[in-house]
C-alpha cells in the first residue's frame, strides 16, 4: 500500500465531515435568513450559527447538580454518531471510505443512537421539561422509525441491496430507477420523516420560546456552554446529513464517481448546492405552514408510513 492509498480515504472522510459540520450550521443560518426575509424582517447573518457555536465553546461548562455521566456523554455521542455517518456515507463521492459498511439500515440506527442518548440525558436532568420532551420525541420517533425502515425497504428491493453507495451509484447508471414509482413514494415518505426527526415545522417549532410546546428543544434546555455547542453542531450535522442522503438518492448527478481531487471538489460543490436548494424549499414551506396540534402529528407520520408501504408494494409489483 502506498502512502496515497492510505491518505486518500482519510482526506475524503475528513472533507465530508467538515462539509457536513460547517455546511450544516450554515444551512440553518441560510434557512433562518431566508425565512426572515420572506417575513419582511432582516434576520441574523447566515454565518450566525457558526458564531454562536464558537461563542458557546468559549463559555464555562455548567451542568445540573444532580446529573450523571449520561448527561455529559450524550452530546459527545450525538456528534460522534453524526461524524461516523458523515465519514462513510455517499455524500460528496460514491466511493466513501468503508463504503461497504454504509448500509442504509445501519446508518439510520447509528443516527438513532444519538437521539436515544439525548432522550436519556433529558431524563437524567430530572426536570419536568426534560421528561416531557423525551416522552414526546420518543413517541414521534416510535411512529417515524418504522415508516423510515419501510421506506428504505422500498428503495432496496429493486436494487437488491441496501448499501447506500450502491443505491446512489445505481441512480447514476440507471436513472430510470429514480423515476420508478416505488422510489418516488419512498423518498416522499423519507422527506416527511426528515422534517419530524429534525424538529422542523409542522411537527416542532425550532424558534419558539414556549417550553410547554417544545419537543426537541425541551430535551436540551439544560445544556449550556460547550455541551450546548456540541448539541447544536450534532443537530445541524444530522439535519444536513439526512438532507444530503435525500438529495443524492433523488438527484445523484454531480457526485464524484471516480477517484481524484477534482471530482471530489466538484462533488462537494454540487452537494452544497443541492442541499442548500432542499433547505430553501423547506424554509419557504415553513413560512406558510404552522405547527400541528401534537395529537395530529401521528396523522402526518401515518401518511409517511402509508407512502412507504405503497412504495414497497409498488417496488415488488413493478419490476
Amino acid at each position, binding site marked *: 500500500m502506498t502512502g496515497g492509498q492510505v491518505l486518500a480515504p482519510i482526506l475524503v472522510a475528513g472533507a465530508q465531515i467538515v462539509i457536513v459540520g460547517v455546511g450544516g450550521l450554515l444551512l440553518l443560518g441560510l434557512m433562518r435568513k431566508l425565512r426572515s426575509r420572506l417575513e419582511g424582517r432582516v434576520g441574523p447573518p447566515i454565518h450566525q450559527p457558526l458564531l454562536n457555536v464558537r461563542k458557546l465553546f468559549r463559555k464555562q461548562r455548567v451542568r445540573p447538580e444532580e446529573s450523571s455521566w449520561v448527561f455529559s456523554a450524550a452530546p459527545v455521542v450525538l456528534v460522534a454518531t453524526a461524524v461516523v455517518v458523515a465519514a462513510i456515507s455517499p455524500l460528496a463521492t460514491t466511493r466513501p471510505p468503508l463504503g461497504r459498511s454504509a448500509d442504509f439500515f445501519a446508518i439510520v440506527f447509528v443516527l438513532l443512537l444519538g437521539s436515544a442518548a439525548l432522550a436519556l440525558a433529558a431524563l437524567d436532568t430530572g426536570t419536568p421539561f426534560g421528561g416531557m420532551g423525551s416522552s414526546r420525541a420518543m413517541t414521534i420517533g416510535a411512529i417515524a422509525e418504522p415508516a423510515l425502515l419501510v421506506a428504505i425497504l422500498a428503495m432496496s428491493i429493486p436494487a437488491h441491496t441496501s448499501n447506500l453507495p450502491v443505491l446512489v451509484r445505481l441512480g447514476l447508471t440507471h436513472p430510470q430507477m429514480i423515476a420508478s414509482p416505488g422510489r418516488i413514494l419512498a423518498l416522499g415518505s423519507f422527506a416527511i420523516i426528515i422534517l419530524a426527526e429534525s424538529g422542523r415545522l*409542522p411537527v416542532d*417549532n425550532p424558534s419558539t420560546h*414556549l417550553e410547554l410546546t417544545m419537543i426537541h428543544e425541551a430535551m436540551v434546555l439544560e445544556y449550556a456552554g460547550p455541551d450546548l455547542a456540541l448539541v447544536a453542531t450534532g443537530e445541524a450535522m444530522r439535519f444536513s446529513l439526512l438532507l444530503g442522503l435525500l438529495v443524492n438518492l433523488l438527484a445523484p448527478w454531480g457526485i464524484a464517481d471516480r477517484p481524484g481531487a477534482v471530482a471530489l471538489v466538484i462533488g462537494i460543490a454540487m452537494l452544497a448546492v443541492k442541499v442548500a436548494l432542499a433547505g430553501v424549499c423547506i424554509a419557504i414551506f415553513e413560512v406558510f*405552514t*404552522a405547527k400541528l396540534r401534537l395529537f395530529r402529528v401521528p396523522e402526518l407520520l401515518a401518511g409517511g408510513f402509508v407512502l412507504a408501504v405503497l412504495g414497497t408494494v409498488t417496488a415488488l409489483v413493478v419490476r
Partner: protein
Amino acid sequence: MTTVGEQLELLVATRPSRATLRLPATDLVATASTLLAAGYRLALIAAVETPGPIRIEYLFTDGPPDQRIELEVEVDRGSPRIPSLARVSFPAGRFEREMRDLFGIEPIGHPQPRPLVLHQHWAPGWHPMRSDAGPQPPMLSDAAPYPFVRVEGSGVYEIPVGPVHAGLIEPGHFRFSVVGETIVKMKARLWFVHKGIERLFEGRDATAAVALAEKISGDTAVGHCLAYAQAVEEALAIEVTPRGNELRAVLLELERLYNHVADVGALCNDAGFGLANAHALTLREQLLRLNESVTGHRLLRGGVTLGGASLVSLPQPDQLREVGDHVRRLTDLARSNTIVMDRFTGTATLSAEQAMEIGVLGVVARASGLCFDARSAHPFVDSPVTFRPACRDTGDVLARFLVRCDEVAASLDLLSDYVARTGPLTDVSVDRGLTSAGHGSGIVEGWRGTIVHRVEVGPGGMLERVKVVDPSFLTWPALPVALADTIVPDFPLANKSFNLSYAGNDL
C-alpha cells in the same frame, strides 16, 4: 323610617341610575342575593377606613341604562367581620379574600378562607392597607411551601412553570398536574408583583394622581386612567362636555386597536405561524406611531385629563382606512391557514354557564356568549346606533380570536365616526369642585374588559381611598376551568387567548 327590605324593593322596582343603601351586616346576604337575582352584577367590593369603624362598599351595576347601587356595611375596627357573600357570588369571594389579606376583615362562612394576595412568607397578621399597619415586618424565611393540591393516581406528574418565564411576560407560577399530555388540574399563582398601588393613591392630590392611574397597567393606560377620571369627576361633580368625551372615546379605541392587533399576531405566533405575527408587529408599530402623533406618547399617556381630554392631533380618515385594509389582510391570512384554524378550534373551551358563574369580563366573556360590553351598558359618549358588542358563543380559542378580529373592525368604524365630528382637540372642564368632597365610580370598557374604579375624595381634593378592579382580577379563575381536557402543548395558546394582565391583577 322605612326598613331595608322596603328600600330594596323600591330600588329594584325603579332602577335608579345612582343609589346608596346603608344596611346592617345581618341584612347583607339577603340584600345582595336580591340584587343579583334582579340582574345586577357585583362590580366591586372596597373596604374604606374611617376614623371610626371600617366601612365596606359593595358596588352593584347594571345596564343599559347605566345603573349603580352601593350597599354600605360598617364593621368594628377591633375585630372586623362580615358575613361572606361567597356562596351567592363567586367574584364576591375573591374580593373578600383580598380584603382579608389587606385589611384583616374576616369573611364569616367563606368556603375558602385562605390568603390570596399575600404569599405565605409575608408576616401573618400584618395587613398592609390598614392605616395602623406600621412598617413592614421582615419576610419569613421559614414559611411552609404553598400547599398545592396533589392529584393522586398512577401516571400523574406535575409540571411547574414560572414565575420567571422564557418570554418577555410578567411573573406568574403555573402548576400543571398532567396525565400523558392531558391537563387534569392547573393552579395559577399570581401576586408576585403586588405593588400596593391603591395605597399609593391615598393622600395624593386627585388631579396629580391621574399620572399614577395611567401606570396601573402599562398596556391599559387609557382604560384605567379614564375609569379613574370618571370616578373622580362623579365624586367632585365635574361635568365633562360631549366633545371631551368624544376625544376620550378616540383614545380608548386607539388603545383597543394596538393591543388587539398585537394579540391576533401573538396567537398566530404561538401556533407556529410567524408570518402573521410579522405582519401584526408591523401594523402594531404603525399604530404606536399613530398614537404618538395623537397624544405625544406611544402608549397614549397624557391624553386623558381630569375634566376632559387633550390631544395633539386626530387620526386622519385615510390613515384609518389604510389600517383597516392592513387588518383585513392580516385576519384573512390567519383564517386561511387551516393548521392555525385547527389549533384554535375547540381548544380550551369556556362554556357560557362557567363564564357566568365565575363572572368573567371582556373578550373572554363575549367569546363565551355573554354579550356584555360597558360601551353599551355604561356609555359615556354618543355611539353610532349601529354599535353592537362583538359576540361569539363557542367559548374556544377561535372564538376569542374572532372576537378580537371583530372588535378591531368595530373600533375602526367607531373611530371613523368620532373623527368625522368636528370640534377642538382639547376640551377640559374647569375643576370647580376640587374643594368639595365626595365619592364616585367609573366604569370603562378597556381592551381586556370592564374596568371599575371607585374613589373617595376628601376636602381639598385629596384622595382618601381608590379601589381599582381590572377585569383580569375576575377573569383569571376562568383560565384553569377552560383548561380541562386541554393538552399541555396547547396551554400557551389558551393562555394567550385569555391574555390577562398580571400588573392589573396584582396591583
